[in-house]
């Protein structure tokens, strides 16, 4: 089956991100297709490229990247939720006159239309919330 995941919870605040990553890994291990993960609300913090969690703790961002690299999972970040939280890619940073940038590929800034599309093209859409 084709699955999509909607993640609303911030990493390391509540369990949502860990639950979603565990579910995602089990999905692909079971032979399902995980089309995309859509990061929305505080879930956008999962895409922060400067995140540096302690080495003896699970690295959520690297976990998402590995799913992209190994299984082609798309990592879509809601642009409106991200920009207002200080999460910008290089293009948006330059457009807003900011010096640094905090999101990079494979995380992609997209609109809510992508979430609607994901719901339409997937057999199952599973939400993980804080």
């Amino acid at each position, binding site marked *: 089956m084709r699955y999509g995941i909607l993640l609303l919870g911030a990493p390391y605040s509540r*369990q949502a991100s860990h639950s979603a990553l*565990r579910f995602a890994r089990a999905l692909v291990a079971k032979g399902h297709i995980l089309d995309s993960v859509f990061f929305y609300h505080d879930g956008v913090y999962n895409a922060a490229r400067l995140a540096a969690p302690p080495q003896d703790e699970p690295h959520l961002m690297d976990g998402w990247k590995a799913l992209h690299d190994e299984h082609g999972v798309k990592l879509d970040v809601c642009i409106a939720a991200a920009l207002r939280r200080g999460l910008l890619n290089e293009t948006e940073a330059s457009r807003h006159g900011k010096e640094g940038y905090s999101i990079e590929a494979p995380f992609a800034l997209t609109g809510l239309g992508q979430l609607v599309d994901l719901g339409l093209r997937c057999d199952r859409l599973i939400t993980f919330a804080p």
Partner: protein
Amino acid sequence: MNLHTLNRSPADSRVYQQTLQAMGHDDQLLLIEDGVQGALPQLVRYFEDVEGRVYALKEDLEARGLLGLCADNVHVVDVDGFIELTEQADKTITWY
């Protein structure tokens, strides 16, 4: 048939009431994260209306030291069982 997931303990949050109101006759309920506390014998009475259709996530029970302490009428499933429940259900609804 729909699957409902709930990540709050009935001892902490009243969202379980909305979950129960929204559940159809053959819908199933999966307790995850802190929600697994609802599978304990002391709290499972909150879910008596949907008895036999309550599941609890094994990994989250284990992380809280609650594995083996669930009420008898709660089905314990691991993350693969969670996926199977989502396969069987038309939709999965998340309560939090």
